[in-house]
């Protein structure tokens, strides 16, 4: 993911200028980088190596005497476990649902905010607010203050609207029990739409306006300008939003943990691994599941990165 703004510089800065004492200067250059690099390797890579080792071990905290080498047993259990397979499916649905819906909503709202109108700053500020509520707090608010079947805001609003038309028999659905996965998805869409909107708005504002003006003078209508100029220009921003959104939402724990506690078919992979580890104390199986998740993520991330970077190369070559 070469940065959008940086691509022009990327080619020129790759090789440092030939210095006099090249070797010492190379180390002088590296010195400021080293603390951060070593810190990251120690704190993020070593634990993963440990996870890899434990994934081949028979290790359950409840049976400490039976610790030993297990070969691929844990992986076999992970792949044959129905819960794990459900969790994979739930993770895909949850991530794809949240990313797609919030991208489409974010695009619409970014287009609305790309015009000059009274109170544009105020609307933008209001739009950002959902993203700035602590995720657990947001999930709690959705669960108890909005979805609650007896006095949540949603059913309260239904009562009120039905009351306006003189009906005292409004529908009062139990949102979380009736559609648990959608309940989680909606709360996350609410939190992530502002993120997508901000990225796409930045993209819209980087559009070359003179070209659009020229097209308009040539008689292109709004729809033609949108499909043949705005969308192609936004493509890299859409992909960036989808990529970053997926990375964050695949790992979501807070909303699943809070709204449904992983029940009713909403347990995604992070929640399931948390459960195997925290409640079943099956360290070997939890590690094997984590390794599988990492491998899956690497495949998806490489694929996504390749799409994005090939897009940049294609643009540069044009």
């Amino acid at each position, binding site marked *: *993911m*070469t*940065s959008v*703004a*940086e691509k022009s510089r990327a080619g020129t*800065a790759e090789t*440092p200028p030939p210095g006099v004492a090249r070797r010492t200067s*190379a180390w002088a*250059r590296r*010195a*400021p*980088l080293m603390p*951060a*690099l070593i*810190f*990251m390797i120690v*704190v*993020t890579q070593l*634990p993963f190596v*440990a*996870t890899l080792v434990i994934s081949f071990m028979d290790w359950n905290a409840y049976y400490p005497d039976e610790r030993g080498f297990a070969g691929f047993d844990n992986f076999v259990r992970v792949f044959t476990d129905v819960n794990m397979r459900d969790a994979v499916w739930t993770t895909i649905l949850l991530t794809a649902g949240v990313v797609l819906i919030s991208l489409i909503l974010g695009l619409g709202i970014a287009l609305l*905010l790309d015009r000059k*109108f009274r109170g544009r700053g105020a*609307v933008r*500020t209001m739009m*950002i*607010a*959902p993203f*700035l*509520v*602590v995720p*657990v*707090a947001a999930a*709690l608010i*959705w*669960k*108890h*203050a909005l979805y609650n079947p*007896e*006095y*949540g*805001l949603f059913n*309260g*609003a239904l009562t*009120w609207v039905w009351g306006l038309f003189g009906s005292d028999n409004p529908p009062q659905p139990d949102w979380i029990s009736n559609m648990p996965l959608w309940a989680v998805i909606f709360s996350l869409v609410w939190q992530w739409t*502002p*993120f997508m909107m*901000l*990225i796409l708005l*930045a993209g819209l504002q980087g559009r070359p306006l003179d070209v659009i003006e020229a097209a308009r003078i040539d008689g292109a209508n709004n729809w033609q300008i949108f499909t043949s100029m705005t969308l192609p220009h936004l493509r890299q921003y859409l992909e*960036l939003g989808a990529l970053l959104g997926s990375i964050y939402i*695949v790992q979501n*724990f*807070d909303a699943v943990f*809070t709204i449904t506690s992983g029940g009713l078919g909403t347990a995604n992979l*992070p929640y399931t691994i948390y459960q195997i580890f925290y409640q079943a104390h099956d*360290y070997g199986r939890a590690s094997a599941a*984590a390794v599988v*998740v*990492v491998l899956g993520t690497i495949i998806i991330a490489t694929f996504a990165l390749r799409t994005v970077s090939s897009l940049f190369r294609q643009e540069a070559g044009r």
Partner: protein
Amino acid sequence: MSVTTTGPVPATRDQRGEPVKKRRERGGAWLTLLAWVVGILFVLPVLWMVLTSFHSEADAATNPPSVFAPLTLEGYREFFSGGASPWPPLLNSLTASIVSTALVLVLAIPAAYALSIKPVQKWSDVLFFFLSTKMLPVVAGLLPLYLFAQNTGLLDNIWLLIVFYTSMNLPIAVWMMRSFLSEVPVEMLEAASMDGAGLIKTLRSVIAPVVTPGIAATALICFIFSWNELLFARVLTATVAETAPVFLTAFVTSQGLFLAQLCAAAFVVSLPVLVAGFAAQDKLVQGLSLGSVK
């Protein structure tokens, strides 16, 4: 509209001129209204949280909602002095967020310098290594860190969280700071070295003025991410080092009882993030997109 229409030419100008403009204006009014409605819908749950937090428990739990019920601080009183005090978790969150953010900046700024202003060889590989650690699902490192903490007596110790939060935010900060540092014009750096300015002087008079807002934005975003984190805090802390999000999870099973208190708690815990986020509003996109969107 013109009274002196004599031929088809002014008539077409009429059609293409004023009415179109007027129609566009009317359409514009609708779009403005739509933008306002959407904005209000999105902010509504936040406003509802704040309003409910100032209602009494009886008024908070009515159907239809009692919007104009009298305001009270009951919910806040219950939250702060009703049961377990929220102050230790809030202070823990503050410590973990501020110390880890400071550590992140100390590590990230020199690293970003070595990746932009005086780049090392293969700097883009290093940059992508940092990004790749962000794609590693955090659950993958959870168990070893837990076992490590258990064996070294660091469980329920805020320092373990600080180290973890530093590693969680370091890649973001390196990417952000690199994007801010590469905004420093090359000509200015060259001019400074021609004038014989040393490293310290260059840093202070050329680089600092350009990147100080960037450092502030980076710090605010790292603060937000640390403050929000739940999974690791829940697994690695207990009664002593518990953070504010973990404290909030006590409300998960409340079945919607004590709604006013819950809203007060959610609002108090979210307040630092709301303040930090609105302060960093202009740099928020750049930060969240790791510096790739300006």
